């Protein structure tokens, strides 16, 4: 045990200095959070200046209504974001309109212009002309305003009161309340989904990252034969256990740093988006899941004999790790799904499936205990499996073993 701890300490202290580890630990989360929060931040970006938009109407006159509808958008200093300017020519000839519009845009009198033509009672031509690429935000707002006005027009045609319709068709939003032992809890589905998803994502990313470091370190030790010196000092089991401890400690450090960064960088913002119902159990599944994967990876990783092979092995391991992420949609669609329940008993997906399920639905204590037991037994199983492979693989150089050889290793005493 003492030697295993020494190996773990070495692995931990050496890997933690690794540049890609440092990058992934400190830069990556900022990048991810940035990416996740950017759209939200952009959406809230205030408009700076007022834009003059031209409007040409044929067979219809609704421009005051459209302008009124656009009044809901204000610049930072309270001015309307959009002012409409009616453009017209004597004979409303399409070519002349285009000419005038272009001229006004060139003179910077308008930003662009809307072409609105009523073809029949229920058919309109609506186009927006501009010289530069229009901001998607503007387009979306024009679309909304024009739709609103034209819908009202059509309602009036059949003698319906738009206000009345709006009132009558008001949609409701369903508030979810989760009944649990703790009593009533307000439950914000999106936040919990997102929270659980992030939780699993980070588990997997951290695993792929640390597993990569680990496989490379085993390959290095094999190729420079240090492994023989190590094995002349400790047993294969001690060496392997040390590596599993070291790897798990690395991963958990990484997660800890990520949590600290998340809370200190955008604490309230992030907590607005993320919510976990059962943090305690989530953490237990996380740690056990991590150790399970780590102990499995060490066996599979040890068969690589050079950098190239370690990369192909890593891609297989990455797929294994991505599996729960792909399967997570099953749970998000329906947390009660039978498949999700079965997958909770399958060691490779136990940790992720259970993390999702315990946060989304009420899972009985029996089920929690059984899955935890499965996970713990699987850890022993994968340590046994990896031990068998590791023992032989770390001393075989030159070529990657085939399946039948690996089966022979597993059968050997």
């Amino acid at each position: 045990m003492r030697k295993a701890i020494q190996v773990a300490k070495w692995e931990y202290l050496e890997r933690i200095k690794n540049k890609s580890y440092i990058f992934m630990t400190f830069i990556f989360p900022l990048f991810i959070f940035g990416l996740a929060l950017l759209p939200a931040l952009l959406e809230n970006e205030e408009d700076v200046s007022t834009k003059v938009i031209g409007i040409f109407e044929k067979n219809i006159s609704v421009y005051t209504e459209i302008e009124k509808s656009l009044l809901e958008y204000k610049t930072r200093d309270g001015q309307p974001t959009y002012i409409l300017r009616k453009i017209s020519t004597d004979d409303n000839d399409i070519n002349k309109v285009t000419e005038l519009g272009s001229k006004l845009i060139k003179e910077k009198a308008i930003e662009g212009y809307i072409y609105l033509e009523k073809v029949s009672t229920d058919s309109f031509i609506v186009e927006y002309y501009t010289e530069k690429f229009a901001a998607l935000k503007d387009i979306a707002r024009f679309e909304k305003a024009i739709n609103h006005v034209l819908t009202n027009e059509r309602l009036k045609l059949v003698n319906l009161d738009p206000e009345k319709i709006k009132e009558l068709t008001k949609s409701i939003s369903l508030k979810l309340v989760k009944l649990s032992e703790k009593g009533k809890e307000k439950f914000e589905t999106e936040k919990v989904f997102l929270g659980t998803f992030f939780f699993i994502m980070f588990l997997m990313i951290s695993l792929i990252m640390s597993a990569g470091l680990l496989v490379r370190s085993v390959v290095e030790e094999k190729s420079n034969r240090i492994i023989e010196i190590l094995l002349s000092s400790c047993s294969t089991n001690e060496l392997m256990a040390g590596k599993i401890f070291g790897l798990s400690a690395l991963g958990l450090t990484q997660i800890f740093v990520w949590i600290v960064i998340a809370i200190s960088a955008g604490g309230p913002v992030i907590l607005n988006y993320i919510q976990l119902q059962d943090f305690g159990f989530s953490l237990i599944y996380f740690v056990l899941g991590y150790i399970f994967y780590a102990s499995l990876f060490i066996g599979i990783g040890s068969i690589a004999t050079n950098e190239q092979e370690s990369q192909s092995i890593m891609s297989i391991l990455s797929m294994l790790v991505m599996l729960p992420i792909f399967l997570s949609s099953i749970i998000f669609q329906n947390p009660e799904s039978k498949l999700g329940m079965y997958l909770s008993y399958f060691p490779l997906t136990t940790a992720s499936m259970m993390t999702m399920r315990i946060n989304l639905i009420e899972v009985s204590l029996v089920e929690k205990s059984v899955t935890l037991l499965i996970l713990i037994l699987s850890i022993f199983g994968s340590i046994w499996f990896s031990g068998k492979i590791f023992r032989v693989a770390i001393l075989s150089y030159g070529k990657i073993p085939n399946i039948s050889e690996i089966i022979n290793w597993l059968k050997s005493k």
Partner: protein
Amino acid sequence: MLRVINLHKEFTNVVAVDNLSFEINEGEIFGLLGPNGAGKTTTIRCLLNIIQPDRGEILFNGSKEYDIKNIVGYLPEERGLYTKSRIIDVLLYLGELKGRSRSFVKEQATYYLKKLGMEDTVNRKVNELSKGNQQKIQIISALISDPQILILDEPFSGLDPINQELVRDLILEFINEGKIIILSTHQMELAEKLCNKISLINKGKQILYGPLNEIKQKFGRLNLYIKGKNLDEGLKNFSEFETVDLYENYAEIFLKDHFNSKEVLQKLLMKYEITSFELKEPSLHSIFVMSVKQSGK
């Protein structure tokens, strides 16, 4: 004393070590010799308890109750270290992994680094050193825990003559403390100079074993050593010669059983400018070659 009794290890379809037995006393350098694939590495791995033998016993001072991992220092044939780590960190790790205290390992590291003239490299990274110096660090790492038994696999390969001398001194210093060295090598001259006792194995079987001088005596015949200017492959055509090992300025000849040295000398003088003609006990190299050939028959 290290005693190996009937050590046997088989892999799928291959007998790697076949009932091997030997004894090494304190203060002895034991040569484990044999061609490639003879079973030397497997024997060493069994000794190190890296792999389990199918049969046989290994006793240290008459007992099975010892932890070989804590009393052995090992230098594998192929060299390598954690290249990106600091020398002192590597040495501390490898020393502590042998169950030694940090302060003890530190003391040892300082001692050996100083002895090999490398005390200023202690905080440098391994890959900042020359190849030769990296090798020296590796030799230090085998000695750092002050082991009872030292297993060296080709310790001199890749070392220049000056460093070879340094390492030789380390080996002799170690053995003078009454410890055990197992030296695995192909370099027969080296084994001949250093070893007190040898075991020659081929295809897993021990074909020669014992103190070096006894083995030479037991071989019971003399070899012919000639020096001369124009020695060439033509020597192999002499009917009296069993085998000829041709070197830069001399040849060692393994003679057939019945020969007349006078006739041989006359024949030689007719063809070559012989400057020296000597009959003496065979070199370990020729014993090695002959024994391997005979055991293969």
